[in-house]
């Protein structure tokens, strides 16, 4: 570098440039429209076509919606009220409201029980969904399934209590022996639970559910949207832990466990859910002891859970694979053992990555619960297709009923997806 050159380039700032506000932008509706809707000729054409579509859609549906009839007792009456005008017969919803929500066999005077169960569900879910809440609330979440079972099915309160005791026994045994050897704790726990359940089943007196506090309601009397909710909540909450276990099993260094998980996942993913449901409705009883009458609801829950857990396992496997190897190594080098490393380091991160995928499976699962109508269970869709549309009063009101079903499912699924977006934002800690 020559000296002269260096001199001409040399520079020392003596005055500070004061900060200036960014150049102002034109504002206003007109400006916004010009920039976003009519920025070029093709864009203007697209805007006009879109507006025309929206107009034709609204002009077709709005009169039908707004002119709806809400309080007649049959389609014929509704048509008379409408008198040739366009309008929806929403009265099918008001008149069959209970059937749509609870099915047609659940005793009317007991509707408070599922309602209360739903209310308690919200309380039980709160600490799981919003982990800023005090952790002590999880104690209620843990006993909720047993309370909900008792509320919905009724019968002897001893049944859910014995079931709960079985889990408690398993937990105690696992706590005690799981420290030394995971396998001993695990199988010991299962054994303890089975012992408690058998002893308990022996002790519960015959006919205890005859004059119980809550009248017993058999599973085949469940129906309507309540059945969809029950299946959805039960199966999602069972299939997430099962999916995690399968994903970890698939990664396992023990060949037998790995092999079992791979075969299970690949098999279940290759079979349509509807096939599994048919198996549940007619064939699954072959796998149980001959004198055991396994409830149809339970059989369906098992099938849907197995089905969706295979998908969740694959989603979580993706999350596990996305973690850098260094996270495992750091956990190992600090002396954490396998369960600790998984629980504290690996799974929290892998699950966070997997949230969108898990929510996707959960939404799909919830909608798939309507498939049980095919094996003659009267869920919301089963009620609509069966008892309601087949009745003389409401034969032919497809739009209103199916639209209502779509609306209910949309509300729940949209809620789930909004929650997952909130969760992703809440968990975003690694931004730079």
């Amino acid at each position, binding site marked *: 570098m020559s000296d002269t050159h260096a001199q001409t380039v040399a520079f020392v700032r003596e005055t500070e440039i004061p900060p200036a506000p960014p150049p102002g932008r034109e504002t206003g509706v007109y400006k916004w429209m010009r920039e976003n809707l009519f920025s070029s000729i093709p864009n203007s054409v697209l805007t006009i076509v879109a507006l025309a579509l929206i107009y034709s859609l609204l002009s077709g549906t709005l009169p039908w919606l707004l002119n709806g009839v809400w309080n007649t007792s049959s389609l014929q009456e509704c048509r008379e009220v409408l008198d040739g005008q366009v309008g929806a017969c929403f009265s099918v919803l008001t008149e069959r409201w209970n059937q749509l929500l609870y099915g047609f066999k659940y005793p009317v005077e007991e509707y408070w029980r599922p309602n209360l169960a739903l209310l308690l569900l919200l309380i039980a879910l709160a600490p799981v969904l919003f982990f800023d809440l005090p952790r002590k609330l999880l104690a209620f979440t843990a006993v909720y399934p047993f309370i909900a079972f008792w509320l919905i099915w009724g019968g002897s309160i001893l049944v859910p209590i014995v079931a709960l005791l079985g889990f408690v026994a398993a937990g105690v045994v696992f706590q005690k022996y799981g420290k030394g050897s995971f396998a001993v704790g695990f199988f010991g726990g299962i054994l303890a639970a089975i012992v408690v359940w058998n002893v308990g089943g022996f002790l519960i007196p015959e006919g205890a559910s005859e004059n119980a506090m809550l009248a017993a309601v058999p599973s085949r009397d469940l129906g309507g949207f309540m059945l969809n909710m029950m299946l959805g909540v039960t199966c999602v909450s069972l299939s997430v832990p099962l999916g995690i276990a399968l994903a970890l099993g698939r990664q396992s260094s023990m060949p037998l466990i790995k092999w079992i998980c791979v075969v299970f996942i690949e098999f279940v993913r290759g079979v349509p859910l509807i096939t599994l449901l048919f198996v549940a409705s007619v064939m699954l009883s072959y796998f149980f002891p001959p004198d055991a009458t396994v409830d149809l609801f339970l059989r369906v829950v098992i099938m849907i859970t197995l089905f969706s857990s295979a998908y969740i396992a694959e989603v979580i496997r993706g999350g596990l694979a996305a973690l850098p190897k260094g996270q495992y190594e750091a956990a190992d080098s600090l*002396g*954490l053992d396998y369960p600790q490393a998984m629980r504290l380091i690996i799974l929290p*991160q892998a699950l966070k990555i997997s949230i969108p995928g898990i929510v996707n499976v959960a939404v799909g699962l919830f909608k798939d619960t309507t498939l049980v109508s095919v094996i003659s269970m009267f869920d919301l869709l089963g009620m609509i297709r069966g008892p309601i549309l087949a009745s003389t009063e409401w034969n032919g009101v497809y739009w209103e009923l199916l639209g209502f079903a779509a609306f209910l499912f949309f509300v729940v699924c949209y809620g789930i997806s909004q929650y997952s977006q909130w969760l992703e934002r809440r968990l975003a*800690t690694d931004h*730079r």
Partner: protein
Amino acid sequence: MSELMSDRAIDRSKMQVSDEVAIEINNMNKWYGSFHVLRDINLTVNRGERIVIAGPSGSGKSTLIRCLNALEEHQQGKIVVDGTELSNDLKNIDKIRSEVGMVFQHFNLFPHLTILENCTLAPIWVRKTPKKEAEERAMHFLEKVKIPDQAHKYPGMLSGGQQQRVAIARSLCMMPRIMLFDEPTSALDPEMIKEVLDTMIELAEEGMTMLCVTHEMGFARQVANRVIFMADGQIVEQNEPEEFFNNPKSERTQQFLSQILGH
């Protein structure tokens, strides 16, 4: 390569090598499949030693120190760390890992936990230290690496140099008797290298037994009491730093030094 030297005088009063053996490696061999990565390694490290391991890329330096806390498994020979032999027994492995701290090239902090949680996690879960005590100790070490004010941030919000110092503090919270470093400054910008090296020098001044894979020859000259040169999975030469740099014996070492020091 940089010849970064710390500008402050090093306090050597506590840097003493005792007769007690910290690590002993006997005829150790390791293969990746059919590839013989480590060949007949023999090495004894006494308590208080500061050893720098150097060598060309792919010579097996990382593999060697990762064998010391069983992140990699060796197939032949014997490794005794702190009196415990590394075998397939998981109990031994967990014991050794909780006594031996490790710092990685890419920090490997846990991004979903705060700095403080990163530091207290292992003491609470592995050592069963009460939470309060673990947090006090974590703050003590964070102060030592000069970032106590970042304790409640997440790793993603820190600079590389700060993250590496947190990683060192995280290891120290387990009160290890031996520290392993695998190229702790290779992923850092020059100005951050110095702050990490200073932290490591302080650690050495307190008499910590350290094994350090690094290309920072300035650090080796100032702090190490022994430099080990590896090539092709073998220990080719080891010596005191002055001898090693000024009077290398083997041709491989001379070649390596001329490349790395740019003469």
